[in-house]
C-alpha cells in the first residue's frame, strides 16, 4: 500500500521495522540455516548463553583489580595485555590482541570504534547499544570531553584526553586509576567498584566514600 505519507518521504522504501518484524526475519533466517545444516539450535543456545551469562565486564573488573593490587601483574598487563589476561584465563574472539591503557593523574584514555563496533569482547563482553550507535561513534573523536560529561565525568582541562579508535584487529580497554579510600581492600572488594564505563573510558571509578 502506497500512502501519501510514503510518497512524500525523502528516501524511497525507507522502513522502520518493528520488533515483531525483526523477530520474524530472524526466525526465517534461522529456519533456513538449520535446514541447510549451517547452524544448530544447540550452537545458538550455547553461544548466546556464554555472552549473556559468562563473558562480560565482570571479567575486565577482575583484570583491573588484579593490576591495582599486584604491581608485577600491572607491569605485564601494560607490556602485553593479551598475555597478561591469558594468565588469568581470559582471551579469545574479538580480543585476539588486546592493549591496556593506563590512566594517571595527567592522562585519561577513552576507546571508540568510529567505523563499526569493535570492542574487547573477552574482557567486557558484548558492547552496549550506545557504543554501537551514531551519537557515540561520531562524537567520541571530536567531543570526547562533552561525551564524558554526559556520563558524569567532568575532567579538568589539565588532564590530557587520549582517544583510541579501534580500526584494526587490536582491541583497547582502559586501566582506570584506583580510587582513594581503598587501602587494604581485597581484589574482590575492588572488583565491585570497576564499571564497564570506566574500562571504556567514559567514566571514572568512584571512591567508596563519594
Amino acid at each position, binding site marked *: 500500500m502506497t500512502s501519501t505519507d510514503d510518497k512524500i518521504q*525523502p528516501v524511497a522504501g525507507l522502513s522502520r521495522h518493528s*520488533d*515483531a*518484524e525483526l*523477530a*520474524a*526475519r*530472524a*526466525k*526465517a*533466517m534461522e*529456519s*533456513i*540455516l*538449520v535446514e541447510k545444516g*549451517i547452524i*544448530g*539450535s*544447540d*550452537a545458538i543456545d*550455547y*553461544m*548466546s548463553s*556464554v555472552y*549473556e551469562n559468562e*563473558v*562480560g565486564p565482570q571479567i575486565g573488573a577482575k583484570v583491573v583489580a588484579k593490576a591495582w593490587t599486584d604491581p608485577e601483574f600491572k607491569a605485564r598487563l601494560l607490556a602485553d595485555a593479551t598475555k597478561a589476561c591469558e594468565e588469568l584465563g581470559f*582471551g*579469545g*574472539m574479538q*580480543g*585476539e590482541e588486546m592493549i591496556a591503557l593506563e590512566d594517571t593523574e595527567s592522562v585519561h584514555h577513552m576507546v571508540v570504534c*568510529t*567505523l*563499526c563496533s569493535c570492542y574487547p569482547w573477552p574482557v567486557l*563482553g558484548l558492547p552496549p*547499544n550506545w557504543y554501537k*550507535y*551514531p*551519537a*557515540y*561513534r*561520531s*562524537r*567520541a*573523536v*571530536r*567531543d570526547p*570531553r*562533552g*561525551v564524558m560529561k554526559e556520563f558524569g565525568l567532568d575532567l579538568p582541562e*589539565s*588532564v590530557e584526553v*587520549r582517544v*583510541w*579508535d579501534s*580500526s584494526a*584487529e*587490536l582491541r583497547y580497554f582502559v586501566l582506570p586509576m584506583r580510587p582513594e579510600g581503598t587501602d587494604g581492600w581485597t581484589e574482590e572488594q575492588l572488583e565491585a567498584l570497576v564499571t564497564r*564505563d570506566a574500562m571504556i573510558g567514559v567514566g571514572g571509578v568512584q571512591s567508596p566514600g563519594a
Partner: protein
Amino acid sequence: MDGIHDLGGKAGHGPVVHPDDEPVFGSEWEKRVLPMFPAMAIAGAFNLDGFRSGMEQIPAAEYLTSRYYEHWMHSMVLHGTEAGIFDPEELERRTQHYLENPGEEVPKATKPELVEALKQLIPNGDDYRRDVEAEPKFRIGDTVRVRPEASTSHTRRASYVRGHVGEITHHHGAYVYPDSNASGLGEDPHHLYTVRFTAQELWGDEPGAVNSVMHIDLWEPYLTTP
C-alpha cells in the same frame, strides 16, 4: 567505502543515550542472530572484513535508524544470498509466515560439531597477524599523512583523518589488509601502525577536544610522507 557508517567527527547525532540497566540482548531474536555470525563465516559465506563491508551497504537513512543486529542481518542476507544459502523470495515468504504466526518456533536441529567449534573459537579467536618479507616503511616517531583520496570500496581509512598529518606511535607488525580481504581479493597483508593526531590538527579549536589527541590504527598503504 565513503558511506554513512564512517561517522567519526560528524555532527547532528545528538546526545549519547546510555541507560544503566540495558540487557545484554534487547530481544530474544538478537540471541538467535549473534551465533549466525560464526556459523555463516565457518560455512564460507563471508570473512570478518566482508561482513563489515556488507553492513556498509545498508541504505544510509536506514543505517542510522535501524538496530545493531539489524545491520548484522542485512549483511548476512546480502552475503548469504550471494553464497546461495538464502533465496530472497523464500526468506520473505518465511518472514511473512512467522510474522503471521508469532507463537511458532523454528524447527530444532542440533549440530554438535558447531558447538565444539565455538568452544574453541570463543576462548581462542582467530588470527589476523601475518608474516611478510617487506620491511616496514615507517618507524615510530615518523610524521605521516593519511592518503586523502576518496574510496569506492571497503576501507578502514576513516574520513576524519584523511589528508591529516600525524605521528606514528606504534608499529604492530603485518596484518590481513581489510581493503583487499573484504572484496575477496585475498589477504594481502601489510604493516599496521598506530598514528596519533592532535585535536588541533583534526578539528581546530574544538571546545570538546581541548588538550586531546586521537589515535587510530592504519595500514601502511593508507599512509604517505607529508
